[in-house]
């Protein structure tokens, strides 16, 4: 097949045996149970934005992990000997791996709506994450741009190659521009914030906003240039080693200054990584708490550490899948919006059953996935327009960027805002102590 010749999306013919080892490396009881349980009921398709919008059965979520399942059945399952002996599950081939590339990457946001509907309790989104491990090992992460960014991240610690020195300069520059006191590389700190590389590229104001909020809280805090970029493109690309390297850098940085809280930026997958996966790579529970910025703000509002001004505004809120449905932080943004006195017009299916913006799971970083992304975004677009709100807030720079681009393309007058920046702009003046 001509398809397996190096295409713009991959560097060379896929390495089948690396894919195989990548698939089986992390199979434990939970994953095995998921791979064993499917009854082919097809409900997951109806929860998936890509199937719902295109009607193409290939986008059925459980079908996307078919190669992983076949490999499991041949190599790891309780009856693997029979699967192998009778050839009941096909062997991995370069052809099938290539054929599945777009299913595993382009058409999955790892949003987990399928995991929410599955009557068998299969966490399909997690299986996709595992599948990407094997695909990445085989060299099948779409190189334009997801794979390339992951590679760079693995090599330099930042997908855009942002060095510690440049980051230090950038922070000071932002501090000066916005008139905010920046704490960088303090020897000790109680709170350490991190950033997402999207912030650096597109939303530098969010770094000023974090600084403002942390200054407001008043506890010692500091950025760390030895571990700042939480983005973790590696996770969405499926590069397990890169993922662990990024994570370990941040864990070391936070531990080095004795901080008690690691603050995750407005970003979805990086939260999933640091909050739920990092401790596993670390081998034990982390010596600090991991809070997404909305969680920290909500907590601080409730404890009185943050006071905000009431604003009169009608807005809606877009949940980032990794923060709400997958991360368990659905309530925090609502607490903040309520404290701000914002009249929230919730979107249809808001909260745990929300639809992805279309860019999650690294899909925003795959150039050729644009049409699919747009198809998925159409759902969000319709919902936001139906809400009648003049502005949609979100707490994930990835989502924000997708909403920005989509809105611009649709000629919206609905604006897109960061919840973090909204809070930073409406902090109540502190009475001098």
């Amino acid at each position, binding site marked *: 097949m001509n398809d397996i010749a190096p295409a713009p999306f991959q560097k060379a013919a896929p390495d089948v045996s690396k894919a195989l080892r990548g698939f089986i490396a*992390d*199979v*434990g*009881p*939970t994953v*095995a*149970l*998921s791979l*064993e*349980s*499917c*009854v*082919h*009921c*097809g*409900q997951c398709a*109806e*929860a998936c934005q890509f*199937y*719902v919008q295109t*009607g193409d*059965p*290939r986008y*059925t979520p459980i*079908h996307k992990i078919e190669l992983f399942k076949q490999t499991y059945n041949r190599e*790891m*399952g*309780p*009856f693997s000997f029979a699967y192998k002996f009778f050839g009941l599950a096909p062997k991995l081939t370069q052809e099938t791996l290539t054929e599945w590339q777009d299913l595993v990457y382009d058409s999955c946001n790892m949003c987990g709506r399928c*995991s*929410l*509907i*599955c*009557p*068998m*309790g*299969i*966490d399909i989104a997690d299986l996709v994450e595992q599948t990407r491990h094997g695909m990445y090992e085989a060299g099948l992460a779409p190189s334009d741009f997801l794979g390339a960014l992951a590679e760079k991240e693995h090599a330099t610690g930042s997908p855009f190659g942002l060095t510690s020195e440049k980051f230090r300069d950038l922070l000071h520059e932002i501090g000066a521009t916005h008139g905010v006191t920046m704490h960088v590389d303090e020897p000790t700190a109680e709170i350490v914030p991190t950033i997402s590389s999207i912030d650096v590229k597109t939303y530098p104001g969010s770094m000023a906003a974090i600084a403002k909020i942390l200054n407001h809280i008043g506890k010692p805090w500091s950025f760390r240039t030895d571990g700042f970029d939480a983005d973790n493109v590696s996770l969405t690309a499926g590069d397990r080693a890169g993922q662990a390297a990024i994570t370990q850098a941040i864990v070391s940085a936070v531990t080095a200054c004795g901080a008690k809280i690691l603050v995750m930026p407005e970003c979805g997958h990086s939260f999933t990584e640091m*909050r*739920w*996966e990092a*401790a*596993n790579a*670390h081998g*034990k*529970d*982390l010596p600090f708490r*991991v809070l997404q910025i909305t969680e920290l703000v909500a907590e601080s509002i409730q404890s009185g550490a943050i006071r905000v001004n009431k604003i009169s505004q009608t807005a809606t809120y877009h949940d980032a899948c990794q923060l*709400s*449905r*997958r*991360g*368990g*932080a*659905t309530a925090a943004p609502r607490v903040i919006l309520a404290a701000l006195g914002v009249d929230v017009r919730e979107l*249809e*299916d808001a*909260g*745990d*059953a929300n639809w992805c913006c279309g860019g999650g799971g690294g899909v925003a970083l795959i150039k050729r996935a644009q049409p699919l992304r747009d198809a998925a975004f159409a759902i969000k677009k319709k919902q936001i327009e139906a809400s009648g709100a003049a502005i949609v807030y979100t707490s994930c720079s990835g989502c924000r960027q997708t909403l920005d681009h989509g809105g611009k393309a649709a000629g919206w007058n609905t604006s897109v805002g960061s919840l973090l920046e909204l809070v930073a702009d409406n902090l109540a003046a502190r009475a001098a102590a």
Partner: protein
Amino acid sequence: MTLLSFARGPGMQVATLILIAGMFWRLSGILLLRRRVAHAAARNPFAVRLLGGAVTIFTRAIPRRTFWPRVGAGVVLNYVFHIGLFIVLFGGAPHILIIHEIFGVAWPDLPKGVIVVASGITLAALILLLVRRLCHPVLKMLSKPDDYISWLIVFMPIFTGILLSGETVAGYGALLAWHILSIEALMIWLPFGKLMHVALVFAGRGMLGYNFSRKGAAT
């Protein structure tokens, strides 16, 4: 040895032993894989997680309201089949007799008329499910030989059971033999195909409920 005495004797014994060994084989083969310990600080204490797992076993039985417009028809059809099968299986007098024979527990049986109607509805639902599987693009694509074998292997006991209750096409002895043999086929196939969901559904939902409760996420 007549077909019936084979079905009631050696056939039943072999099928039961395969069923038991196969189910334990599959479950232990899954559960004894290397466990990946979750180290991250849980949002909920152990008891709550456990409760979350238990609750999810029930809550996952019904899709969230938002999914209904798209999956409702299939879910209802599947429920008609499953409930019908449940009624026939646990309400039919001969079935209760067997349960009593094996486990020593019994309960009042349902009138034969109810069983006849239920089994008819069950069979009709099963046929519609097959039609759906053959027509729906997603199901058609997902379906493997296992799906069709499992369908047939569930169809046969219901079908022979209905024939047996009417005793129309053959004598009671022959129909009973075929009914029992078809059930034995089901018992033998169950551990190896998707019918294993009779056990895996609880394990799967419980595991997901537990893991997601750990994250404080929606189950």
